[in-house]
Structure formats: C-alpha cells, structure tokens
C-alpha cells in the first residue's frame, strides 16, 4: 500500500472498505437483497439460485461494502466457513413466511455462531426478516424468538422487517450496520493494515498466524 493510500485513509477522503458475508437458507432472498442495494444501473433483471457465491460491491454514505453473497442450498452451506475469517460483518437473511424451515435456519445460525472463527469475534450481525409482503409471514419479533436471538450476548445484533422485491426495510438495516461498523473499534477495516489485526487477536486470546 502506498503512502498516498494511507494518507487518504487518515484524512477520511477514501471510503473505508468492509467485507460482509450474506448468509441464510436457500430461497430466503439473499441475492435479491444485495441486488436491491446495488446502484440501479447495475441491477440484474432476474435472480437465479446462486451456486457457490457471488461478489458484489456497493457504497453507502460512508462505507464501501464488499458483499460475499453465499449460496444457501444445503449442499453448499458447508462452504460458508471458508469466508468467515476475513469478514467484518454478517447479514443473515430469513424467509419469515417459511415457518417449517425456521428450525433449519436456527440450526445453521447456531453452527455459525459456534464456529471458531466467529465465536471470539465481536462481529455485528444484521438479520433481515424477509418476505414481509407475503400473507402468512411472521413479524420480526416472532422470528427473533424462534431463532432465540436474545441468547446472542457477545455480539451486537439487529433484526428488521424487509421486503427485498420492493426494497423496503433494507436501508434501515444497512444504516444500523454502518453505524455499528463505525463504532466497533475492534473490527479490522481494510486500510488499517497489520496493527489492527494483531490487536484483534490479543483481545480474543487466540493466536492466529499472520
């Protein structure tokens, strides 16, 4: 990294980069949400099931988001963990009309929270209770109860209703996430370089080889 890059980082001229993982079961609307967040001229017309993952980038008022939009299909869920280590925040999308598979979502969430790369980090987690436009959808409160979100004590989390097709509720969630990333001093941001990472590790009492 050049000196100019660092300088612009200190002066706040350059936007901070943040890596976000977008997770959730298949058909919960992850790709649609990310698609809505992108600038309108680059949006896709039709959304197909993701195989593997997609990388998308978009800006908010003060951050440059790089989102890893992972596939939610059962056979690809074990591939999520390859991307845990370097993420700064997690967006977890839930299909709030799918009562039946809420337990599956909870199971995946628990596995995620217990993973060694996630457990010791204070990553902000944003939940979208998606598909609010559907008749039989549950409220965000009900969803958070079913997922036992109140048990998450060591990470800042937030749940909001959303309708990804219309884009409702997405901005609210993103604003929260942005605020958290800014306030959360321990989250390593792109331009900080090595010192930031070392600090993070000494806090979580884990030695990682860098």
């Amino acid at each position, binding site marked *: *990294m050049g000196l100019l890059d660092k300088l612009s980082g200190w002066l706040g001229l350059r936007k901070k*980069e943040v*890596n976000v993982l977008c997770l959730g079961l298949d058909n919960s609307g992850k790709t649609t949400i990310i698609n809505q967040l992108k600038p309108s001229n680059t949006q896709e017309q039709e959304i197909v099931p*993701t*195989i*593997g*993952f*997609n*990388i998308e*980038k978009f800006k908010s008022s003060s951050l440059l988001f*790089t989102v890893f939009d992972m*596939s939610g299909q059962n056979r*690809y869920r074990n*591939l999520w963990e*390859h*991307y845990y*280590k*370097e993420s700064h925040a997690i967006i977890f999308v839930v299909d709030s009309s799918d009562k039946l598979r809420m337990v599956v979502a909870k199971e995946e969430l628990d596995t995620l929270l217990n993973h060694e790369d996630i457990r010791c980090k204070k990553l902000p987690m944003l939940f979208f209770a998606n598909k609010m436009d559907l008749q039989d959808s549950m409220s965000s409160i009900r969803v958070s109860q079913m997922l036992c979100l109140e048990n998450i004590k060591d990470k800042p989390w937030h749940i909001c209703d959303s309708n990804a097709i219309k884009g409702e509720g997405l901005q609210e969630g993103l604003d929260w996430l942005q605020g958290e990333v800014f306030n959360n001093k321990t989250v390593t941001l*792109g*331009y900080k370089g090595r010192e930031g990472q070392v600090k993070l590790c000494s806090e979580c009492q884990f030695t990682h080889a*860098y």
Partner: protein
Amino acid sequence: MIKKFDKKDEESGSGSNPFQHLEKSAVLQEARIFNETPINPRRCLHILTKIIYLLNQGEHFGTTEATEAFFAMTRLFQSNDQTLRRMCYLTIKEMANISEDVIIVTSSLTKDMTGKEDVYRGPAIRALCRITDTTMLQAIERYMKQAIVDKVPSVSSSALVSSLHMVKMSYDVVKRWVNEAQEAASSDNIMVQYHALGLLYHLRKNDRLAVTKMLNKFTKSGLKSPFAYCMLIRIASKLLDETEAGHDSPLFDFIESCLRNKNEMVVYEAASAIVHMPNCTARELAPAVSVLQLFCSSPKAALRYAAVRTLNKVAMKHPSAVTACNLDLENLITDSNRSIATLAITTLLKTGSESSVDRLMKQISSFVSEISDEFKVVVVQAISALCQKYPRKHSVMMNFLSNMLRDDGGFDYKRAIVDCIISIIEENPESKETGLAHLCEFIEDCEHTVLATKILHLLGKEGPRTPQPSKYIRFIFNRVVLESEAVRAAAVSALAKFGAQNDDLCFAFLDDEVRDRATFYMNVLQQKQKALNAAYIFNGLSVSIPGLEKSLHQYTLDPSEKPFDMKSVPLATTPITEQKTEIAPVATSKLPEKLAPSRQDIYQEQLAAVPEFQGLGPLFKSSEPVQLTEAETEYVVRCIKHTFARHMVFQFDCTNTLNDQLLQKLTASPTVSPVPATL
C-alpha cells in the same frame, strides 16, 4: 510502474528463470495475502503465476492445501483488475481437479460469462466448463446455448470448444445444442465456423448417415473458413475409407474440387488426402501430385516441407507418380532447411535409380551430423528400403551405416541402424562379414543393453558358421569381462554356441547368473555329446516359458529328492520359429514382453488354487469347454474336463445371466450312464 519493475527484474536475473527456486510451502504461505483487503492486484498476480508455474512443473499439491489456496483465490473475484481476473480463470482451470468444492465459483463465472465485459466472457466459459460435471451442466445449459450463438466470436468459439470437451462427459446434454451449433456454423467468423463444424461432427460421428448428410449440406452450401474446409476434407476421406466407396462418389469429387481452392492450406489438405487414399489410379493421382510438385518450389518453407514430407510418405506406394517430381526434389537437396533437404534425399533414395544412389549418399553424409535423430531414423529407414531394392549397393550402404553407428545418437536411432544392418546381413550373405565386424565394433562401446544382447545373440547364431570364428570370440569375451550381468549372460550363451561348434574353448566365471549359465554350458560341453549340444544350445527351449517358470517355482517351493524333470513341463503351443527369437531375451532372464500363458497354464493355476486338488500332480490335458445348455438360457453351464495321471476333474462353469437373482447352493450330481463294453 510495472515497466520499471520488469526492467529491474531483467537486470538482476540476467535472463535466468525468476521462478527457478520456488518452494511450494513458501508460495502457499504467500497466497495468504489473497485474504487481505484491499487487494493488491500486482502482488496477487505474481503469486498466482508462481502457483501455476509450480503446478505445471508437476509439483504435487495435497487436497487440503490446494483447497485452501483455491478458496483464498476465490476472494480475488472482488477485484476488477482484468489481468488478475483472467489469471484467476487460469488458476481455476489448473486446480479444477486437485481442489475440492471448485463448484463454489460457478455463480461468479456465470455472472462473468453473461456480463458486459467481453474480455471476461470467453475465458469464463472455458473455466466454467472445466469445473462443471454432468449434474451441474443442466443448470448452466441455458447460458451455454446463448453463448454458442453469441455475436462476439471469442465467446461463441469458447462455448463451442467447451461443448466439444463436454461431449465426452455428457453427450446427451450437449446433443440438445445441435441447433445452436448449426446456427454458429453459418457464422462469418472463420474460427467460429470451424469450431461449430467440429462440434457438429463429433456429435454425429457415430451415425454414418448423419455425417453423410452433413457433408452433403456443407459441400453444397460452401464454407467461408479454410479450417472448416480442411476438416470437411478429413471427414470426407475418412468416410470414403470406411465405406470403401469408389472414387466416383460425390465425396471424392468434393475433395478433388478442393484442389482448386484459393487457400493453400485447403489445397494441400486435399492433395494429401488423395495421395494417402488406398488404390488410387494414376489418373486420379496426377492432379494431386502436380499440386504437391508446385508446392515444392514455393517460397514458403512450411509448404515445401509439407509437400516433400507427403511425397516421402507415399514414395513407396506410388513410385511412378513421385518420380515425376524428381526434378523438383533434386532442387530441394540443397535447401537451406535441413529437414526439407533430408526428406527430399530420402524420397529420391526411395524412388531413384541405382546409378544415383552413390551421389545421393555422398550428399546426405555431408550434413547427416546436423540433423536431428528423428530425421536420421527416416534416413536409415530409406536406406533399409533401398537395400532391399538394390542388394548390390550393400557395400556403400554398409559403409554409410557404420559411420552413422559411430556418431552420437539416441536409442531409437541406434536401434534403427542395428536393425537395418541385421536385415542386410540376413538377406545378403556376402555382406555378412563386414556387417558382423561393424556390429562387433559397435558393442565394444554400447550403452544400450538391449542392443548389445541382440547383437550378441546374432553373433552366437552367425559367428560359428563364418570362416574365422575366432575373430568374434575376442569381442564376445570382452563383453563377458566388462559388462553388466544381462550382457554377460548373453555373451556367455553366445560363447557356448561357439564352443559347441569348436571344441577348443573353456571358461570360468564368477558371477551368479553368469556362473550358473557358464556351468550349465560347461557341463554340456564336457559331456561332449553332440546330441545334447544340439538339444540344449541350438534348439533352445521347446516348452512354454510361463509353464517352465511355474514348474521351476513349484520345484523350489517344495524340494524333493528327485531332480527337476523337464518333461513334466507342458510343451509349448507356439511354433518353434517364434520360440527361437525368444531365446535371446530368455538368456538374459529379463523377458521384455511376457508370453501370454497358454490356456492350459491358466487352468493349471486355477486348479492348484483349490486345496482338494493339490495332491493330483501335474495336469495332463484339459479339454475344450463344452456347452451343456443353450446360449440364451437363464443359467449358462459349460463343462471342462481336466485329466490328471490318476484322476479326472470336471469343472462346471455356471454363469447367471439374470440380473435380479442370486444363485446359491449349487450342487452337481453326475450320473454315470452305462458304458458300452467295447469302449
């Protein structure tokens, strides 16, 4: 900035390979920077290059480390650097088979392949097809169909070539893309048209009727691409060959019409196809040969080479047609391109008259040291053919060959020369002595064991019958003292043959294999029994070699009082003449090609594996299998009768032809029918 970096690198490296001393573990360690944000494209590019370099050097990557590196690499998709992205495609293709879960990049590649950036689309398709298996192919089928008919040529070509690769894996899916490929075949781009034709042909190649139809269609409508024309010519000549159609068929007319094409490549392809066809009449051949003749005087070296190479190949088949080009070939002898000159001379040797041989040989020996081994072999083969044609010229040839034998050269080259000399000796008794002398000289300093043993065997066979056998004994004796065991064994065998003919020789040696053989022959010689000599030394073994091997093995396993009986070994079924050629390798006790064991040997082995049959002694004879049931029944039973000295064993082979049933508890209850007293 990149330029500056390159310059510095050049100066410090002074032309040597900058990747020479790469360590796999160090490179994989470096690959961790893929995980850093933001991405540094230049550094990542360099590391990816190192990884690909290592992979191509044959470095083995374990699944875990490969997968780890692969997943780190997938993060690079967030960079928009074009070079880096294309390097990622290359890495994906290289690691497709060694890393797990490569399927993870499917969506990213699909996005690139349908995206706006044309530079990404073609390579993304190629990478995608490498990581896709049959089950996943359905998911991307729609995109592939679109890509095949894409208006950007590179995209369309990539899709077509990738489809061609997929045909091997999932023929049924790719078959559904025929309409798209058909459309691409009418493209204006020469490469797209060629690739489309290739795909269409490979989809139909098992259906001769469909291929004929396709050929008719394209030969009528005409194509733009010369590559596609060449392909059509090849398909057409293959079809002609398969159907054995006469030369009045429209396909032949098509090939002939291609001789008048504007493009040289097409003209050459057509000429070469006609010349290589079996049973062509002189009239059909003439236009093709005259085209090749024209190419011989072309200013383009590639065309001259192609023409003279083709003429060289068919020189023996159509000597009269090729003789017509002799004048042009003479001009090529002094061509600055050595390959062309060599081929021209060897062609002339094949077709030329006896009088010109001396001149040509002189010409070729002036630059034989400058050409590569591959062409030297061509020269040797030409000489070999020439010797059969003009046996009287053998002294010139022999001189030339011995000179070549003295030069440096690889195994194939030397073997060609040795074979050539041996064949001359066999056909030409006059040349025997000079030939053997040259070969003797050769084995004095020969690094190829196989050739040395071969020559020693020949010396053993021919040497004793020459007027002065003692001349060769010195050479053979040198081998016995100096060489590796295989050669020594062969040398001793050869010496024994001399000894059997001339009684005045005696030897003592000290090494395992060599000593055993030496004592064996010593014993035989001491007994001075001409009959025995004849049996053991000249006739070789008349028993089947696997059988002998097995019996000897058995004999050493359970040692008994009585000596090993050669007669218990089943007699060989192979004819004696063939057996003779096997003696030399046997003498070295290193069988280069294993003899297929006879049927009886197989049975004996099978029976020996059954514990109840072990006390029965050697198998005397096994009958041919006799079918006891009809061939189409549910259970096919056949019987083989094995005769031992005191026992008879019936082997019932019961084959279950039903898929969903299991045969259990089979019993055989033989009923002995009353035997007529006369038997």
